[in-house]
C-alpha cells in the first residue's frame, strides 16, 4: 500500500488540468488513467492504416484562457494565430454561405441586408454570451448561503447587465431561455444561416431548434474563445491529441505522476470520508484528497457505491440525464472530396450540413423515439488538408459529428449502425458527389461505441446533458454543484460538473481552485 497526497481519477483533459493546477500549487499528485493513453475523448488515434483522427472532439473552440495561462500551455506548443481561425461553411443546394474569422466577423454568400442583420445579431449574441462568460470560471452560486465573494461576483453580473442599458437588458432577460429558432426568425431571413446557427445551438444535446432553452447552447459556444476571440475555432496541428499532450507535458513538468492502464475499481470510504482507491489488481492507494475527473454517475454509483451516500443524493445522481444523441464518423478517403461550390479555404474549414432550422428540427424528431435521423445533420472537417501528417500522401481524412443518433436506439445499434451509416453517406454524397467511391475505410462511433470506448456513460460528450435544468447550480446535481461531494475528501472535476463539456479544461481548473481554497 502506498500513500499519496492527491489522487486524480481519470486522465482526460479535465483530469490533467486539475492535476497540473494542483501540482503547481505544491501538491503531490498522482493521475490514474484506465486507458493506455491519456486524453480521454481528446485524443488523436489511428483508425485505419496511415489515417489518424481526433477521436471524439475534433475542433478547439473553448479552451479556457485561464487554463492556457495557469498551465503556460503556449509554452507547451499551444499557440493560436488569427490566421488559424477556421471558417464555418453552411452547405446548401443553393450554394454555400460562409462565416469567416471568429464566428462570422465577415459573412459571405448572402445579400447585404442579411449581412447587416447578421452583424447586429452576432454583436447581440456575443454581448449576451459575454454576460454569462464569467460564470464559466467560477463555482455556481450556492443557494443555501453565499460567501461575500460569491455575492460580490453575482453583483458584478448584475452590474454588467445594467451596463447593457435598459432595452438590451430586457431583451437579454426575454431571450435567455428562448428557443433558438424563434430568435433566428425574429432577426434573420436566410435559412442557410439560420440552419447553421440552429445546428450549433443544438449540437451535443437532445434538443431541436424549436425546443425552448435551445438558445443557451449557442451562448455556451460563444462564451468560449480561442486566441482571444469569442467563437473562434481552430484545428490543432496533430489533432486533439496534441492538446492533451500539451496539458500532459504541463502536468508532468509540474511534477504530476501519471499511471496509464490503471483502472480504479473502487473509492474507499471510511466514516464518511474518501480515503483512497482500490485498483482492479487489488492494489490500494491511499490519499488525503481524491479528485474524480470521470463521469459523476460512474463515480458515485460504481466507484463509491450507493451504500456510502444517502438515498436522496443517489436518486439525484441516477436522474442525471446523459444519453448521447451525437455520433462520430471517421472516413479514410483515397483523395480529398470536393464539396460543391466550396473553395479551397472553405474545405479547410468546418462544413455544416443543416440547410434550414426546419431540417434540423425534422432530423431531431425521430431521436425522441429512439430512431436515428434518416436525413442527419452534421459538421464535417477535413483535418488532413491542414495537417498532412494525418493521412498518407494524397489521401484524406474526414471527421464528422453527426446528429441525431440516440443512445438507446430502439432496434439496437448492431442492426441500426449500417443503416445509419448509409443515411449519412447519402447526405454526404448529395453535397460532395463521388465521395462514396473514395472511401477506403469508414468508422462510425455511435453513442453506444463512445460509451464503451471512452468510458462515457450514455455516450454523452458532456458527461450529462447540457440543458438549462442541468446547468450551473444543478450540475451535476442540485446542492452539489461546487465540485464538493457529500463525502469529505472527494471532489469532482469532469465535464459532468459546471460549466460542462467541450475541450475547455474549466471544470478541472475550477475544481483544483476549489480544492486549494478548501485546503482539501
Amino acid at each position, binding site marked *: 500500500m502506498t500513500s499519496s497526497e492527491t489522487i486524480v481519477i481519470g486522465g482526460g483533459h479535465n483530469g490533467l488540468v486539475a492535476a497540473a493546477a494542483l501540482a503547481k500549487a505544491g501538491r503531490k499528485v498522482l493521475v490514474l488513467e484506465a486507458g493506455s493513453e491519456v486524453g480521454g475523448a481528446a485524443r488523436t488515434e489511428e483508425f485505419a492504416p496511415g489515417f489518424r483522427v481526433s477521436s471524439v472532439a475534433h475542433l478547439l473552440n473553448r479552451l479556457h484562457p485561464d487554463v492556457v495561462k495557469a498551465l503556460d500551455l503556449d509554452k507547451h506548443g499551444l499557440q493560436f494565430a488569427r490566421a488559424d481561425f477556421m471558417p464555418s461553411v453552411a452547405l446548401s443546394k443553393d450554394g454555400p454561405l460562409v462565416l469567416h474569422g471568429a464566428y462570422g466577423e465577415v459573412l459571405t454568400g448572402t445579400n447585404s441586408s442579411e449581412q447587416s442583420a447578421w452583424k447586429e445579431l452576432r454583436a447581440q449574441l456575443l454581448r449576451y454570451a459575454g454576460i454569462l462568460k464569467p460564470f464559466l470560471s467560477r463555482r455556481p452560486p450556492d443557494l443555501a448561503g453565499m460567501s461575500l465573494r460569491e455575492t460580490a461576483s453575482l453583483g458584478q453580473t448584475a452590474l454588467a447587465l445594467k451596463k447593457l442599458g*435598459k432595452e438590451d437588458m430586457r431583451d437579454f432577460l426575454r*431571450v435567455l431561455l428562448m428557443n433558438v429558432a424563434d430568435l433566428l426568425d425574429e432577426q434573420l431571413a436566410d435559412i442557410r444561416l439560420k440552419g447553421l446557427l440552429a445546428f450549433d445551438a443544438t449540437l451535443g444535446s437532445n434538443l431541436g431548434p424549436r425546443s425552448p432553452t435551445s438558445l443557451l447552447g449557442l451562448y455556451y459556444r460563444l462564451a468560449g474563445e480561442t486566441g482571444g476571440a469569442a467563437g473562434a475555432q481552430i484545428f490543432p496541428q496533430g489533432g486533439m491529441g496534441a492538446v492533451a499532450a500539451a496539458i500532459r507535458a504541463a502536468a508532468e513538468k509540474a511534477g504530476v505522476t501519471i499511471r496509464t492502464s490503471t483502472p480504479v475499481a473502487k473509492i474507499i470510504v471510511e466514516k464518511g470520508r474518501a480515503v483512497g482507491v482500490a485498483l482492479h489488481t487489488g492494489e490500494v492507494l491511499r490519499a488525503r484528497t481524491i479528485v474524480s475527473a470521470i463521469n459523476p454517475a460512474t463515480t458515485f454509483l460504481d466507484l463509491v457505491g450507493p451504500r456510502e451516500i444517502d438515498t436522496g443524493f443517489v436518486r439525484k445522481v441516477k436522474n442525471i440525464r446523459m444519453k448521447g444523441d451525437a455520433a462520430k464518423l471517421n472516413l479514410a478517403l483515397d483523395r480529398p472530396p470536393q464539396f460543391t461550390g466550396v473553395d479551397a479555404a472553405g474545405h479547410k474549414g468546418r462544413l455544416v450540413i443543416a440547410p434550414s432550422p426546419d431540417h434540423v428540427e425534422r432530423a431531431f424528431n425521430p431521436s425522441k423515439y429512439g430512431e436515428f435521423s434518416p436525413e442527419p445533420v452534421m459538421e464535417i472537417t477535413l483535418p488532413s488538408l491542414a495537417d498532412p501528417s494525418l493521412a498518407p500522401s494524397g489521401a484524406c481524412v474526414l471527421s464528422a459529428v453527426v446528429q441525431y443518433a440516440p443512445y438507446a436506439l430502439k432496434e439496437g445499434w448492431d442492426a441500426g449502425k449500417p443503416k445509419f451509416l448509409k443515411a449519412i453517406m447519402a447526405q454526404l454524397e448529395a453535397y460532395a458527389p463521388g465521395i462514396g467511391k473514395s472511401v477506403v475505410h469508414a468508422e462510425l462511433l455511435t453513442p453506444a461505441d463512445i460509451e464503451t470506448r471512452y468510458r462515457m456513460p450514455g455516450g454523452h460528450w458532456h458527461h450529462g446533458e447540457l440543458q438549462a*435544468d442541468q446547468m450551473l447550480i444543478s450540475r451535476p446535481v442540485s446542492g452539489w454543484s461546487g465540485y464538493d461531494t457529500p463525502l469529505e475528501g472527494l471532489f469532482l472535476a469532469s465535464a459532468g460538473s459546471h460549466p460542462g463539456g467541450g475541450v475547455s479544461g474549466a471544470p478541472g481548473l475550477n475544481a483544483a481552485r476549489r480544492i486549494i481554497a478548501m485546503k482539501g
Partner: protein
Amino acid sequence: MARQIGLCHAKFRAFGNRSRKNEERVAREDWAKMKAWDAIIIGGGHNGLVNACYLQRAGLDVLVIEKNDWVGGAATSRELTPGFLYSNCSYVCSLFRPEIMRDLELPRFGLQVISYEGGAVFTRDGDYLANYRDHDAHRREFARFSKRDAEAYDRYARDVTRQCRFIQPLLMRTAPDPTSLRPRDLGELLYLGKKFAGLSAPEMALTLRFWTMSISEFLDEYFETDVIKANFALSGIIGTALGPMSPGTAYVLLHHYMGEVDGSVGAWGYARGGMGAVTKALAASFKASGGTIRTGAEVDHVLVGRGKAKGVVLAGGEEIFGKLVVSNADVKRTFLKLVEEKELPDVFLRRVRNFKIRGSSGKVNIALDSLPEFPALPKDSPVYRGDMHFTDSMERMERAYDDWKAGRWSADPFLDMVIPTTLDPTMAPPGKHFMSCFVQYAPPRIAGAEWTDADRDGFAESVISQIAEYSPGFRDRIVHMEVRTPREIEAEVGLTEGNIFQGELTFDQLLFNRPVPGYAQYRSPVGGLYMCGSSTHPGGGVMGAPGRNAAAEILRDLAKSTSHMSAAHDVI
C-alpha cells in the same frame, strides 16, 4: 371638450339609480356621444368582466363593449342545437381564483361549480388508468400498474404542491420590472427574493429546474410506467404549442395544477349551466353594481389624442369617449389592429410583433342522444363524470406535436374529453348528453395555407374515429356537432390564431416578460390604455387574475382604494 365631458358626467353622477339611467343613456345616442365613461372595457370575456366588476365596485362608471351578441369570450354556453347548451370553448372550471369568486359574490349571482371526481386514460390493451381526487384511492390505482410508481406518487404530489405554494401567490401580484429602480419594483423583487429564500435549498433548486424542464423529463424522475406519465403529462401541454418533451412544459403543468391545490371545495369542476355560467355571473355582478354592457358592438379602433386614450370608435363609426380604455383583447390584436402604429414606440411594436401567439388546439363539441359506453369501464364508473383521455403514452403525445410542427392536424390527436351532463342535467334534454372534446394539436394554418372546410372535416373525423375506437356505436349517438379549429375560434372569439392563452406560456413570455418586457404591468405606451387579457401576467385559463391585477393597477393610477380586492389566499 374633455373638461366639458367630465362636467356632464359629474352632473349625471348626481342622479340616483345609476343602473337604470345608464341603460337609458345607452339608448340615447346623443348622450353616449357626449359623455365620457370612467372606463371602457374592450371585450366582454371573463377577464374583461372581472376587470369591469372591480372598477365599477371602486366607484367608476364602466362600459363593457362586446362584439358578439353575448358576453363571455371563450367562456360561454350557447344553445347551438335545440335543447343542448354548449360550453363551446372553455369547458371545465378549475383555475378561477376563489378570491375573485368571493370578492365579486359570484355564487350569489348564480355561479355554481359542481366538482367532479375521477377521470381516466384508456389504454390500447382495453384497460384504463383512473384518476381519483382521493389521494389514497389514486395511489391504489397506480399500484395496479406499478408498486414503485404508487410509492413515488407521494413524493411527486408533495414536490408539485410545494412548487405551487411558491408560485401561486405570484398569480395575484403584478410582476416587478427587473430593470427598474423604482421603490415599488425593488420592493416586489425583494418580496419574491424573500419568498424564494423561504424555500429550502432543494426546493429552490427544484423551482429553478421546474421553469426549464420538460414534463417528460420531470416525470421520468418519479415514474416508470408510461401510461402514468402520460396521465400527468397532459397538464403540461394543454393550450401550448409544445410537446411533453419540450423544455418548459413542467411549468405549464404547474399552471394547470394551481386550481387543484387550492383545496377549496368547488374549485375544480363543471360550472352548472356550462362555462357561460361563469361569465353570466360576472355580468350579473357587474350590472348589479351599476355597470353597463353593450353587446353586438365591435370596436374598430382606440381613439388616441396626444398620446392618451380618449375612447373607442365602433365599426359603424360611432365614437364612445372614456377617460381610460382597457383592452381584454390579446396584445397583438390590441396594438396591431386597434391602435395606430404612429402612436406606439418602435421597440414596443417590434416586441408585440415578436410576441408568440400560436394556435395549437381545437374543439369538437357534440350533442349525443344517449350516454356513450366505454366497455373498458365498469358501469357507473365515476370516470364517466370526469375527464377522459385516449393518449396512453408519451410517444403518442409527442408525435401528435410533431404533426403540429409540420403544419397538419394529427391522425392520432390528444383529446381531453368530458361529458358535463353526467353531473349537470341543465345542459341537455333528459337522457341526452353534451360532450366536449378539447383537441390538441391543431395548427393555426395547414402547411402554410388557411384551413379549409375539408381540413376541418378531416380534423373532426380524426377525433370521432379515436373515440369510436374505444366506444362502439359512438357515431350513431351523435345528434349535432360543432367543430372549431383555430380558424373558427379566431373568427368568433377574436383570439389570435385561436390560442386559448392569448400567447404561449414559455419563460420568454411569463412574469415580467408578459406580454412584452417593459410593459408587464398592464399599462401600455399609450396613456390611459391598459391591458387586462390573458396576454398579460399570469396568463390564460379561466382564472380571472389578469383582469383583477389590471384593475388593481388602474385603481393605483387613479389613487383609488383597492380595499374591495382580496390579496391571494395563503395556500394550504
